[in-house]
Structures are given as structure tokens and as C-alpha cells.
């Protein structure tokens, strides 16, 4: 089986600064990989590169069979990215947002309702404008949008931040569900204990490079 993610010596640049300085990484399907490392290590850039948002300056990068160095738009639509921003429209309600993002992949009304329910957003919250929600609720909405989009590769940047305990449990359950359904998950997190329990593998990102470490349980 071809690995879902295969990076070799990848260098990526933002504003002249090499955010990734030669990253090597291989991720197989169904894995839940935890990226850990200090701030500024390049975790966010690694995720954005895999999503096709960051150009590959040097090196080889294949994600879901697509050559990102040649055409980084080819992998889009199959990848879901939850970055630092939520990608939501503040003036629209929770339901409007999830419906919109689900519609971009042609999700049905049932699938959208299921996504909302999955993140505990059905009911009263669904009709609240996103701009009025707390940070944690917005995060959950963004996750619901991600669920609705049925991506093959999930890229999550500090997804636990801002969520309360219940929200974090929901998130972990969702990620495990996605992985067992065939998706692959990469999570960058400072929540080492929780994410460590969730992940099948832990990877250290330092100085724009990746150092694979031991297999977690």
C-alpha cells in the first residue's frame, strides 16, 4: 500500500524564512500521528504543506498519491485542514456554516445533520451565529464542518485548544472513528498526554525537521 503521506527532504519557505528545513515523514493509512515540538518548530507549516497550501520549495512530497511539488492543488478536496483559524463565517449560524462546507462536497442533509449531532451542535446551538459563540464552540463547529467533508486525510493543528473536557472527549472519539473508517489523521498538539493516548505514533518536529521516535500505544 502506498503511504498516505511521504515527505523527503522537504523545504518550505514563508517570507524568506525556511519554516521546513528538510522534513522527512511517512504516514500509512489509518494511522493517527501526533506531531509534537516547541512553538516555531514547523508543525503548522507541515500540516499546511500536506494540505497543499504551502508550496514545496525543495524535496519530494507525495500526499494521497499526488505530487505536491508538481501541482499542490491536486490533493485538495481530499484533505481536511483545521488550522489555527476556523474557516467559519461569523455572520452565519452554525447550521449554515456546516451546511455550506458540507455542500462543497455534495453532502446530503442527513450527513450534515449527523455531523452536527456528532459534535453536539444540534439543538439550540445550531441556530446561533458563529460570531456569538465561545472559542470552544467555534472549534467544535469547525470540526463539524470537517466531519461533513469526509476527508481522507485529516490535518489538525492544536484541535484540543479551547475545548472543554467533554469537547475533547468528543474530538478524540471522532478522530478514532475517522481513522477506523479508513481516514488518516495527523494532529499537532501540545496536549501531550491526551494526544499521546490517542495517537498510534508520535513524531517530533524540531527546527523545521522531523525526527521519528518510538511507537506509542
Amino acid at each position, binding site marked *: 500500500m502506498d503511504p498516505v503521506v511521504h515527505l523527503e527532504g522537504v523545504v518550505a*519557505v514563508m517570507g524568506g524564512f525556511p519554516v521546513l528545513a528538510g522534513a522527512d515523514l511517512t504516514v500509512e493509512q489509518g494511522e493517527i500521528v501526533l506531531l509534537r515540538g516547541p512553538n516555531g518548530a514547523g508543525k503548522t507549516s507541515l500540516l499546511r504543506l500536506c494540505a497543499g497550501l504551502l508550496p514545496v520549495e525543495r524535496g519530494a512530497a507525495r500526499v494521497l498519491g499526488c505530487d505536491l511539488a508538481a501541482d499542490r492543488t491536486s490533493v485538495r478536496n481530499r484533505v481536511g485542514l483545521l488550522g489555527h483559524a476556523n474557516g467559519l463565517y461569523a455572520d452565519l449560524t452554525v447550521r449554515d456554516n456546516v451546511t455550506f462546507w458540507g455542500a462543497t462536497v455534495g453532502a446530503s442533509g442527513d450527513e450534515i445533520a449527523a455531523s452536527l449531532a456528532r459534535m453536539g451542535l444540534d439543538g439550540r446551538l445550531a441556530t446561533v451565529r458563529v460570531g456569538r459563540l465561545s472559542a470552544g464552540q467555534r472549534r467544535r463547529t469547525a470540526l463539524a464542518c470537517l466531519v461533513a467533508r469526509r476527508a481522507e486525510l485529516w490535518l489538525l493543528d492544536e484541535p484540543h485548544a479551547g475545548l472543554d473536557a467533554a469537547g475533547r472527549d468528543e474530538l478524540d472519539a471522532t478522530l478514532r472513528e475517522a481513522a477506523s473508517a479508513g481516514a488518516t489523521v495527523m494532529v499537532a498538539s501540545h496536549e501531550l498526554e491526551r494526544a499521546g493516548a490517542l495517537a498510534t505514533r508520535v513524531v517530533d518536529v524540531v527546527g523545521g525537521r522531523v525526527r521519528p521516535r518510538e511507537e506509542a500505544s
Partner: protein
Amino acid sequence: MNQPNSDTDVRQCTPVSRPTGTTFTRGLGIAALVGIGWLVVFGMFISPNDRVQKKGVRIMYIHVPSAWLAYLAFIVTGIASAAYLFKRTRSLTWDRIAGASAEVGVLFMGITLVSGSLWGRISWGTYWTWDARLTTTAFLFVTYIGYLAVRDLGGTHQQRATRSAIMALLAVLEVPLVHFSVKWWRPLHQQETVAEGKLNGLMLFSLFVGIIAFTLLYVWLVLHRQRVLAMQDLVDDRGLDVALAERRAEGAQV
């Protein structure tokens, strides 16, 4: 470009510094200088005064070649941009030529507008008139400034090239629209006929010399500027190697 052997080598790399002149450009430069010298001699001294405008007509020897050069530069930018966008001919050299040509073009478009304005003041008493040619030139001038601003937006060299090329092509496609909209807007333009009539042989010859000289100057400027831009890109890339080395060192210490 020489790839450094190891990370430590990079830090001892000398900065990029080499002259942009070659034998060809030196010859070209001399020819351009000679041409301009000729132009000065003919334009300022040998060619006769105009019957109506007297000495004022001499501005023409700067104005017309400048206008020619400005439009040439604009066309070259357009062609170079198109060449970059076509996958088969895609090369950053085209992008740099487009940028260099635009810089030279802006300069000479400014000269064209100013000299034309002064000429108009001397000959017909007005600094400006809303005819198709003048207004389209002014439009191009502002569009060029916008184009140069877009070139500075940052990102990778390829992103800059694609973005600028699209801007340039849109500008090219729009020029006929601007030209015709102004022409229909102000259809009568007397000054145009006055400018084109009554040039005797010597004046035409001087004008011809001017156009040739300016063309040589244009090529010389663009070649040099294009090479400087190539070196700037090279410096950026080298800078990246240095930054990479430093980042890796930082990683190794952890």
C-alpha cells in the same frame, strides 16, 4: 549555481557579486551612447526650427522616441508575461524581462507624459488634452505603477511571476478598450493633425536617429536590469541556504 557541500560551507559563501556587462552589452552601450550623441547633435543643432513652433519643436526629439520606447517596453512586458504563462516556455527569465521592461517603461512613460505636456504648453498653450493617445498613455503609466507594486507582493519567485504575468496580460487586453472609449468620448482632436504634418527631411531623419538610439538604450537597460534581477533572485536563494543551515543548527542543539 554551486550547491554548498555542507551546512558550514554556506556560512562562508561570498555574497553574489559579479558585473552584469558582457562584450555584447558593452558594444551595445557604446552604440547607444553614440546614437544619443548623434541625436543631441541633430536634434539640438543641425535640424531646422519648425516654421510655426520655432525652437519648441525640439522637444519632439525626446518626446517621440520616449513614447516609442514606452510602448515597446509595454509590448515586451506583455509578450514576456505570455511566454511565462505558457507551460512550454515557462522560465523565470521571462518574468525578469517582464519586470525589467516594466521598470524602464514606467520611466520613459513618465518622460513621455512630461515632455508631451511641456510641448503642448509651448506649442498650443495647454499642458493637457483628453485625446485617446494621451489618456491611454496616462492610463498605462498608472497601470504600470500598479504592476510594479504587485511584483513586490512577496511569495516565491514563481508566485510573483504568475501573479505579475496575469496582471500584465489583463492590462494588455484592456488597452484597446481604454483607447476606444477615450476616442469615442472625445472624437475631435485638432492637435493630432498639426503634429503629423510638415516635417521636413532632416527633421524626420533626426527623429529616426532618436528612435534607433532609444531602442538601443532600451535593450541595454533591460539586459542589465534583467541580470540584476536574476542576481537578486540568486541572493534570495542563497539567503535561503544560509537560513536553512541556521535552522538546522538550531534543531541539532535541542
